[in-house]
């Protein structure tokens, strides 16, 4: 698989949210708006890439028995760094994402990639993989956030699309599940079309 494919697969074919169904909690929890989704996606990308780099660097130094705990510590460190930096410089976003920032640490996506990819590949591939997956994650969150924002509030990135209130459900918890459900279905269809063309 070429590096380019390694990078692009995260968007549709192996989209972490739509296809792999990983990292769903933040995907549902913070996507009340496209902006929050994007912010969360980028924060996760940062953690993913950084921890991929470190894991691929230290993979040979760690005995297998404590591999997972060590990786977790690495990931947790980057999460804490993100937390601290965001609180210092982007306090509004920090407020909005709330609990879900520390929870990046348990995002199955991050751990999964560290385990399955970074610990077996060289640093360069790990970076590409992390970027691809991370951006795919951000892509999914932005779309879901956008959908919920449009339907729920009649806005997108804060820009008004139609006047009046939207359907409140989409801002609330059920809307997240429902929106994601139909997006996954849609992604399946798109993926099938792509596969047919390929």
């Amino acid at each position, binding site marked *: 698989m070429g590096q380019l494919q390694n990078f692009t697969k995260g968007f549709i074919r192996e989209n972490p949210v739509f296809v792999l169904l990983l990292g769903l909690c933040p995907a549902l929890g913070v996507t009340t708006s496209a902006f929050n989704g994007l912010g969360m996606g980028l924060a996760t990308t940062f953690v993913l890439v950084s921890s991929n780099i470190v894991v691929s660097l230290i993979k040979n130094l760690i*005995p297998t028995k404590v591999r997972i*705990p*060590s990786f977790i*510590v690495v990931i947790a460190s980057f999460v804490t760094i993100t937390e601290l930096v965001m609180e*210092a*410089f982007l*306090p509004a976003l920090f407020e909005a994402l709330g609990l879900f920032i520390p929870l990046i640490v348990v995002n199955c996506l991050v751990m999964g990639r560290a385990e399955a990819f970074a610990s077996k590949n060289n640093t360069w591939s790990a970076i590409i993989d992390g970027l691809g997956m991370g951006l795919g994650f951000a892509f999914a969150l932005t779309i879901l956030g956008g959908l919920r924002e449009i339907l*729920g509030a009649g806005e997108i990135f804060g820009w008004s699309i139609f006047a009046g209130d939207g359907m409140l459900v989409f801002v609330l918890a059920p809307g997240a599940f429902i929106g994601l459900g139909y997006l996954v279905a849609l992604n399946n269809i798109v993926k099938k079309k792509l596969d047919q063309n390929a």
Partner: protein
Amino acid sequence: MVMTLVIVAVAASFTLATVYNFTKGPIELAREAARQEAIGKVLPDFDELRTEYIMPVTGRDSLEFNLAYKDGQLVGVAVATYTAMGYSGRIRAMVGFTPGGEIIDVVHLEHAETPGLGDKIEKDKSDWSDQFQGFDPREETLKIKQDGGNIDAITAATITARAYCDAIDRAFQTFDANHPNLINKEKE
């Protein structure tokens, strides 16, 4: 095996401590900036600010009273208040009073109310909270109309509106109870 883990943990905590030390300053700055901004919104021009903490008439935690002076004159008091009656979790707000006790304005500091319903207390979501501007709690009652007060509730979010009134009322009651003290301070 144990050693590796300890080493990783130590290395990680060292790195983190470094980052923490770096960001500690900016984080405090950001928090302070937010507070200042809120105070600025609910008070007229001032050149000096004194902060003290006063136990409220009701409630577990103390309130933060920011006494604002211009040319040595008390021009207003910004009270950071809270309520636990919100629809989900605590609501915190900054209420500005004139020295006489009239409300200058109210802004929210923190809340977890439902977007689209309870979040109408935010100034940029709705102008609902503008009705507090110039409200005199001595003349009128700081309660929603359903409860026999003078405040219009938020449609379909009565609970939030009631809670917001509760927070503001807590600030006012405490302000009122400590009124002589606060005015006296100005004379010192």
